[in-house]
């Protein structure tokens, strides 16, 4: 049985490599019962959406297109 610390490591790893079948099923089991780690997964995915937001946005430079 995974604890949250171990689950958080797998949540991060899953974004960079394919999890082994056992890791995958352990993580899935843990997430079923753990809203905190589900939130953590959502946060990691939101961090991933930074790329899209960054590419779509302009920050410091003023937008001069009409």
């Amino acid at each position, binding site marked *: 049985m995974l604890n949250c610390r171990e689950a958080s490591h797998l949540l991060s790893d899953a974004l960079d490599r394919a999890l082994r079948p056992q890791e995958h099923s352990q993580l899935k089991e843990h997430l079923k019962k753990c809203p905190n780690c589900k939130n953590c997964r959502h*946060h990691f995915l939101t961090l991933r959406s930074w790329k899209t937001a*960054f590419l779509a946005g302009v920050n410091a*430079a003023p937008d001069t297109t009409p």
Partner: protein
Amino acid sequence: MPDGFAAEVYAHRADLLRIAWLQLRDEHLAEDVVQETFLAALKSGQSFAGRSKLKTWLIGILKFKIVDALRSRARDPIAISHMEKEVDVQDMDALFDEQGLWRSRPRGWDDPAFIAGQQDFLRIMDLCLEKLPPDTARVFILRELFEMESEEICGIASISPNHLGVLLYRARMSLRRCVEINWLSAMS
């Protein structure tokens, strides 16, 4: 080449410079790679329908310029010993108790509010990326913005896949927490 093309390209200067600085941590070097990126872009004279397409293309060029700069610096022994320190995750372990449960539970982030506040999100991410240890921020950007595969990043940074995993974990855990704290305070 359309007259406005140079202006369109230069509109992204601040964002490109920011990424280059987070990667290289040297103002002059960052200026150089952004300048080289613009020269390459203007020379090609490609046109783009949308602003985000242009930015994506520019970031693609910048990536190669940065990777070259990082590669030529990879022989620096200071850079590597510095990275060893960042690989220690004891401070991340402190986020959990003896049973491995969250000490401070991750809250639910409200999606609609999040989308409405893209500009805030970008501002907060910028702030939080700067707070990360330099190599941790560097690998996060290589992975998430430049979408480089782990193997390639390991080659550039001269680290093992295991170390890379630890650095990316540290980046995500720190950013998650930093965004949460700043996001909640921005909403109140």
